[in-house]
């Protein structure tokens, strides 16, 4: 059961108050109609599953109802930081497991032409 810092309420609160909403930094393409079916399919369905640092979108559903991002280690479940949507966060800690290539903030326009990367390899 996580203890999560809500950057809007500026408090550590119990996981019960929050709802996980999947991978963070999934920007909706600026011009959806210009996307190929493949690109749109990637935006819709392909998600990262990294071993190590992961960025996730959470909502403080039973609190301020704001969405925000957390940087969480998927191995140790440590949360290294919470930050508001639109902000960036660079971890300054020594992670138990390193951040994987490809788990940086996702820029759809660059990603679109690539094959879905296998983020599970460690």
């Amino acid at each position: 059961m996580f203890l999560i810092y809500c950057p809007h309420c500026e408090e550590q609160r119990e996981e019960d108050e929050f709802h996980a909403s999947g991978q963070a930094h999934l920007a909706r393409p600026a011009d959806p109609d210009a996307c190929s079916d493949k690109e749109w399919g990637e935006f819709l369905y392909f998600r990262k599953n990294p071993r190590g640092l992961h960025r996730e979108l959470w909502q403080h559903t039973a609190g301020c109802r704001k969405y925000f991002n957390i940087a969480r280690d998927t191995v140790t479940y440590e949360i290294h930081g919470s930050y508001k949507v639109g902000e960036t966060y660079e971890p300054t800690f020594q992670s138990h497991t390193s951040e994987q290539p490809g788990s940086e903030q996702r820029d759809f326009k660059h990603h679109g032409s690539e094959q879905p990367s296998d983020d599970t390899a460690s």
Partner: protein
Amino acid sequence: MNNLRTGQFTQRNRLPAGGRINRDEEITFRYNNQYYRGFKGDTLASALIANGVSVVGRSFKYSRPRGIMCAGVEEPNAIMQVGSTEATQTPNVRATEQPLFQGLVSSAVNGWPSVNVDAMSVVGKLGGDVMGPGFYYKTFMYPASMWETYEKFIRKAAGLGRCSTRIDPDRYDHMNHHVDVLVVGAGPAGLMAALAAAGTGARVMLADEQTEVGGSLLFSTQELNGKPGLDWVATACDALDNNANVIRLAHATVTGYHDHNFLTISERRTHHLGDSAPAGQTRERLHKVRAGVVILATGAHERPLVFANNDLPGCMVCSAVSHYIRRYAVVPGGSLVVMTANDSGYQCAFDWFDVGREVTAIVDTRAVAGSDVVEGAKSRGITVIPASAVVEVKGSKRVKRAVVYAISEKGNFVKGDARELDCDTVATSGGWSPAVHLSCHTGSRPVWRDDIIGFVPGATHENRFEVGSVAGEHDLSDALKHAAKIGCQAANKALDAQHANSVAIPQCDAVNSAAPMAIFHIPHPKAPSRAPKQFVDMQNDVTASGIQMSTREGFESIEHVKRYTAMGFGTDQGKTGNVNGMAIVANTLNQTIAETGTTVFRPNYRPVTFGAVAGAHVKELFDPKRFSAMHRWHLDNGAKFETVGQWMRPWYFPRDGENMHDAVNRECLATRNDVGILDASTLGKIDIQGKDTREFLGRVYTNAWAKLAPGRCRYGLMCGEDGMVMDDGVTSCLADNHFLMTTTTGGAANVLNWLEIYHQTEWPEMDVYFNSVTDHWATLSIAGPKSASLLKELCTDIDLSEDSFKFMDWRSGNVAGVPARVYRISFTGEHSFEINVAAHYGLHVWKALFEHGVKYNLTPYGTESMHVLRAEKGFLIVGQDTDGSVTPEDLNHGWAVSYNKPYSFIGKRGMRREDCLRPNRKQLVALATKEPDVVLPEGAQAVRNPRQSIPMTMVGHITSSYYSANLGRSIAMGLIRDGINRMGESVYFPLADGRTIEATIVGTDWFAE
């Protein structure tokens, strides 16, 4: 009960004095249909021992008789069904953990028809040699269709306890805590750490699972400050109890160590008082603790040694023997042989001797023992046989003799000749396994230490320390010093302070001990596969040869061995057997235990009842019910209810003697011919304001919103990014920057989240605000040709004429004297008014409508009639007629999609994908059965040709199906491949009952010309 045999009222193994029991309070209890007596302070196990009960169960697989082996949570054999009534049955209770109370009723969970005459033992004895590991997997695998038959017999033979079939009469609850330091275990190290932590002013919680605190001091002879150890325990408890910052829990097991230092503690509050909790008390409480720092002082479990027939009743671990003698004043037998690989095993022989019973010999696997214990044996005249081992015990239902051989220095083979010693009890000690379980729960792996011959907790990212035996500190003096230091350090860490340690550390005498020997599996003159069974895990009947066989079969990872043999499953979770099993795997594979590693323990440390897990979250507190403002009227008028989400909605309103079919037919006819009224309050309502609301609606709905004027409403379809229909509803323009969105009853919460996530993550620059107002409004929908006449009687300030108040308009005014918003929207196709008033006026307006409505035959209808009425008009229900793979075009709702909006609305790109544009998709159509009285079952699969061979090619299915009294026939809707282009064609529905129903594809509006 008449069939109860006369109990033995003599406690023949009870000592005349001593023990921490209250001899003034005698207790009568029942075990396997016989009455026995014990004392307050006994456990069920100690009371059975007092009465000379040896056999307390039959083993899981081989049905061998089993006796009490341990004295605590780790007990693998004495597993009981407890409960005097059906409602209070509790399965799989460790007799060693169950305090005795007046009237306790218990029975062994295993063994049928009785533990002494067990029908299964024949199978066990005959089948014993062929029932190796994986026996059930190998034997009952084929044919797969027979598994359900096999399973019944296997489960019966397995003989685990049974659950009550009645509702639990007790109450349970949860409690949350936030503490600076949580100390797990109130043995000497835990108490010391708690005292030190509390000394800094930190908020401390100390939890211990036993009925009494003290841990090892409850049975050890070691003195603290020159007095019995328990004197210091009492002083320590007083100090803690007098500190307002300390919470001390007894009979409270920390069962789970979860992420971010969140721990769950299962407190058994009344299990020492009776079957059921006294009035006004909760039986169990689950404490949920968020701790700054956790100190594990969970101690260690003594390992038995593995030898032939080591499961025979009378085989115990050494510390348990001391425990029973010193704490409960019962002696588990008449004559004792001890086998030990360390000094600590000697103590039980001394205790046994000191109460006047015979110690046949102490068999030490080592050549040299510590000087203190050698002196202790010498002064009592107890024979010590060094460098030897009990390789086998003999007996049928109780140990009769121990077979002793000399063994090699490393303990891997026997030497010389056998020596048989008469005895009825064999106590063994292979060393102490730190109780590392909780340390593993968040992913940390235990680390093997050769010096203490055991696993200790590994490194962790949590704020966690360990003190005492769990950290491998088996020397009391060292453990106390370290615990005091860690207690203070932990508090300082939690408080971010630098307090100095202020507590006094009790003094104890140094012990002159010799090194223990790393021996787990005692050699036998025969190979393990030919020797009598040598048990590693008693509860799962896992033997040494079984483990060796599984490694031969290729299961070399300890995790695989565990799953193949079932070692470490069961209520004891391998507390006594796991390390021995790992040692045997390591030895077979010729590697070290450190290389072999350990399995990972997961929550819970001991079984937790469902009652404790549920707490007060039962019935309405688990799944709350939501009621509309008119619910009382619905109840008074005999409504049958349907649950929609958490809402209780009227389903239909039967009159005298009516069944559902009759009631629905009457309600539908009344609505089409006169006027019907529906409580539509449950529809989700979201109030949306802000200057960008219009643009926002245009992005989340598929249709256009730019020109919707105040006073007008519009139906909207909401899709996901994949282009599939997600929700629908009518949104009205209240003012230029103010809209009210309605959603489906079940979709309200999801839609609000959906709006919020897009606003906050994609379009944060938009000026728009959302507020859920579902519960703020009561919605009364009157429909039918007489609805305007009825409303006119109650509403004078709105012009209800068709020319002025058009379809899809809304007006504000007063209805029955209260402010209302009235909408000309319809879900029945009839002339309708949806009256919205503040929720607390709802019942008033509803009643007022009925006062005036009698002359119009105003008829209340429920969700069933609502479904029929909307289906007659072909109105769809999202979630019933759609399933997440349906686009607006598939629903023939292209009219509700505005492809030319400037912003690429949610769903637009998705519904333009190649697959969404292809022909031959399933489309929503209506289906008219050839025989009008036949109602198709919902979910029935359609085929074009019913004479094709099986498996047939299915072309769709029925989504909604009813009998329509208005039309005098059945009506149905379904998703049929290419249905919109195939009007007039027939499809067939082959049903499971052998019938095939033919139906014609028709348009969805049954009233259309």
